[in-house]
Every structure is written in structure tokens, then in C-alpha cells.
């Protein structure tokens, strides 16, 4: 029974993964473009938002229709609500990849402030978090989702470290202010990408177990 609905739900989830793949790829390109001083690659990232935007709209439409036409319950309801929220997070990740690419292009117009180590590390962690969050979604894997939540702290720590380090450069040499600010912005964008991956992982936990782990909601008193 309900084969038709299950097929539609499956398609919705496939589209979401497609979007996740695109978002992930754009983050990878933006960070690689920065590390490899690859301006054409960065330009591609800046200009290529359209497929993600189209999927963003398509996924919302599909989810909205499934809610209206099938009035899903329980795990199906949670899956669709999660898909809607993950969709928004992925679209934001796409936007942040553009922000990273644009800041990187500005940065590359100046002499390098320093050898880039921590920013590529942040890029790796953010991408891994995103990939793991989407894997957790596909496999309905609570442990992997929890792992994503745990990873967020390391990203935050790196961002603070990068800020402190670049601040020292800026204080010493005024000429580094402009490019260093772009690096700080990039670290900020990568940290935000990690936040979106965290949101996705939280939605996966909600979808699979019906537990709301956001803002320690588990410890709040139950509603009447």
C-alpha cells in the first residue's frame, strides 16, 4: 500500500541528495580555488548558483505537495519536515560557497599574508561534516549524525585561532589588513557551513528518532 507516496518521498530525498552533492562540490571548489590560486575555478563557483536554486524551489514544491496531498504521519511526516529544513540549509551552504569564492578572489589580488594551513583544514572539516550529515540522512545513521554535532566544536576553535593569528599580522603590518579580513571572512563562512551541517544532522536525528536535540530541547520540560 502507499507505493505511490513512497516513490514520491524517495524522489524528494534523491533530489535533496543531489542538492547536497552540488553544495558540497561548490564548497570543495571554493576552498580548492583559494588554496590553488585558481581564479577561473573561483569564478565558476561565484557564477554557478542556478542549479542549486532550481533544486531549492523544486524540493520545497515537492515537499509541500506531499504534505498537502498525502497528509503523511509519523516517520513520513518527520522525513518531509526534515527535508524542508535541510533544503534551506543546503541552499545557504551554496550561498556561503559563493561568499567564500568571492572573498578568495579578492584575497588573491594581494600578496599572500601567510601560508594557508588552517583555512584548508577548516574547509576539509566543513566538507566532511556536510558529507557525513548527508550520509547520516541517507543511512538514517544516528551515530554519524551525532559525530557531525561533535565536530562543530573543532571548526569553531579553528575559526577563533585564525582570527587571533591574523589579528597579529594586521597589527604588525597595515598592508595585510585587507587580505587578512578576507581570510577572516572566509573562516567565518566555513564555520557557518559547519553550522548548517550541524542543523542537517539535528534534523536527521529528529527524522530518525523523533528527538529534538536543538538547543538542548531534550532537557526542556515536556509540553502539555
Amino acid at each position, binding site marked *: *500500500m*502507499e*507505493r505511490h507516496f513512497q516513490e514520491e518521498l524517495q524522489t524528494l530525498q534523491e533530489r535533496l541528495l543531489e542538492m547536497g552533492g552540488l553544495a558540497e562540490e561548490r564548497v570543495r571548489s571554493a576552498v580548492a580555488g583559494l588554496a590553488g590560486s585558481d581564479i577561473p575555478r573561483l569564478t565558476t563557483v561565484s557564477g554557478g548558483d542556478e542549479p542549486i536554486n532550481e533544486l531549492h524551489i523544486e524540493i520545497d514544491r515537492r515537499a509541500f505537495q506531499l504534505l498537502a496531498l498525502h497528509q*503523511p*504521519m509519523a*516517520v513520513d511526516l518527520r522525513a518531509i519536515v526534515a527535508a524542508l529544513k535541510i533544503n534551506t540549509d543546503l541552499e545557504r551552504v551554496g550561498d556561503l560557497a559563493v561568499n567564500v569564492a568571492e572573498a578568495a578572489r579578492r584575497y588573491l589580488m594581494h600578496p599572500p599574508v601567510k601560508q594557508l594551513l588552517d583555512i584548508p583544514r577548516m574547509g576539509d572539516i566543513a566538507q566532511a561534516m556536510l558529507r557525513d550529515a548527508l550520509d547520516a540522512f541517507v*543511512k538514517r545513521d544516528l551515530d554519524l549524525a551525532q559525530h557531525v554535532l561533535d565536530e562543530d566544536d573543532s571548526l569553531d576553535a579553528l575559526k577563533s585561532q585564525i582570527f587571533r593569528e591574523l589579528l597579529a599580522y594586521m597589527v604588525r603590518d597595515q598592508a595585510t589588513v585587507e587580505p587578512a579580513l578576507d581570510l577572516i571572512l572566509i573562516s567565518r563562512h566555513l564555520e557557518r557551513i559547519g553550522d548548517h551541517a550541524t542543523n542537517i544532522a539535528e534534523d536527521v536525528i529528529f527524522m530518525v528518532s*523523533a528527538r529534538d536535540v536543538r538547543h538542548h530541547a531534550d532537557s526542556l520540560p515536556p509540553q502539555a
Partner: protein
Amino acid sequence: MTDVPTHATHLPPRPTVVRADRDGVADATVKVDVQNLSFYYGAKRALEGISLQAQTNRVTAFIGPSGCGKSTFLRTLNRMNDIIPGTRVEGSARIDGQDIYAPNVDVVELRRRVGMVFQKSNPFPKSIFENVAYGLRINRLVTSKAEIAERVEESLRSAALWDEVKDRVHDSALALSGGQQQRLCIARALAVRPDVLLMDEPASALDPIATQRIEELIYRLKSQYTIIIVTHNMQQAARVSDHTAFFWMGKLVEFDRTERIFTAPREKLTEDYVTGRFG
């Protein structure tokens, strides 16, 4: 891709699991308290050890596939099954602490206190007025004409029918629309001032607008009554009830706050049913 199960063909037999949500149950007083109730049609056991509490001023919905026992269970609550020969009840059912199967129970009085509305509206072939007055007259609950008229109006108002029929209460009830007839039956049940209202698929024969009226009525009536409703329509259970019990093959599989049953049921069987993966 995802491992969404598309169907559950082999549902394992499982013991009756009752998870009355303590948080939800503590917020009101218990009106109907059923403990370990089994019901037999001859040798066939139709209900197996049901334990469930319905609260005062709440709507409790029973859901489950056809033949799961939900209507049978509803009918044990005002002993409507007594009229079927060869039936037998084990366990206890209490209303306000009183065992309704105790030998000294006056079944007519029980059915006054525990009113019932059926799937198919069944007005008597009499006037609208007389349909509502009927229970008052045969039970001699009120005697003066003025009092009867007052109670009929009050009941028709409670059933949200008064404004539609006030100018023709002496017309035949059979001239009313299906939805109006069903609300008349609700008015008739309310006239004798019951505590508990049992509703067996009260809207399943009605169109969406009439169904919505019945659902709104249920919502408003619960401030005065304890309502227990059997419905095939899960969305209806979700819309109108505070607590939902899921029955399957004569067993109570899960009983919890309605919101919980439809968003995050604890039992796989319940989830399979509410998501349409059943059978």
C-alpha cells in the same frame, strides 16, 4: 538511496503493549477506567486484555483496521454488546469508579449516562422535537411540557442544530439532511444529560462540510462531556482527539497523546498503520 521500508508484509505477533503517557494522563481526572478487559463472541476472543483510561473532558479516539476490535470495545463501555447472545466479558470497566458490569448495575441508567451515536444516523420517524424529547419522556426525566421544551432547545443548541431547525421543530426529522440528522442524534443523546458520549464513526457517512461540523461539535462538547470516538479516518482522529488508542487484532497496541501517536509513535506496528504501510 534511503532505506525507507515500503511495506510491512510480515507483521510479527506481539503482546499487547500499553503505554499510557504519564505526562498526558496526569493532566485530567479519569472517567473511564478499563482494566484487563477481554471480550468473547462465543468461544472467539475478540478483545484481549485491554487496559485503558479515558479522561474527563477529553476526546479519546480509537483507531485500527477493520475487525481490530475498536467498535466492540466501544460497545463494552455502555454494555451494548449485552444484547448479542453468547457474548461474555472478563476484566473490569469502571466509570467514575463504579464497575459497570457489577450485578446491581441498572443497564438503562448506564446507557443514559453513557450515550451513543452511531455511524448511520437513525432518527425516529417522528418530529425533530419528539426525537430529542423521546429519551426524556421514556425515562421520565422531566415531566412538565415547559421543561421538556426547554431541554429540547438546550440539546439542539448544544448539538449546533437549533438555528437551522428552530422554525420547524415539529417537522419530520427524516426531512433533515444527513449531517443534520446526525447532529439530531447527538442532540437526542445529549438530552438525557449523559456524562460520556460514545461515537461510532459518527461522520463516516457524511460529506466533508457536514463532517467538519461534527468535528467542531465534538471539539466544543468536550468541555462538558467525556467523548470516546471510533473512527476509520486517521486525520479525523488526529484533528479531534486528545488521546488515541491503536487497536490491532483485538489488542491495544499503543495508547498515548494523539500528537505523539501521529508524529512519533513508539510501536512499529502503530507507525506502519498511521503511515499506511499496513497489510
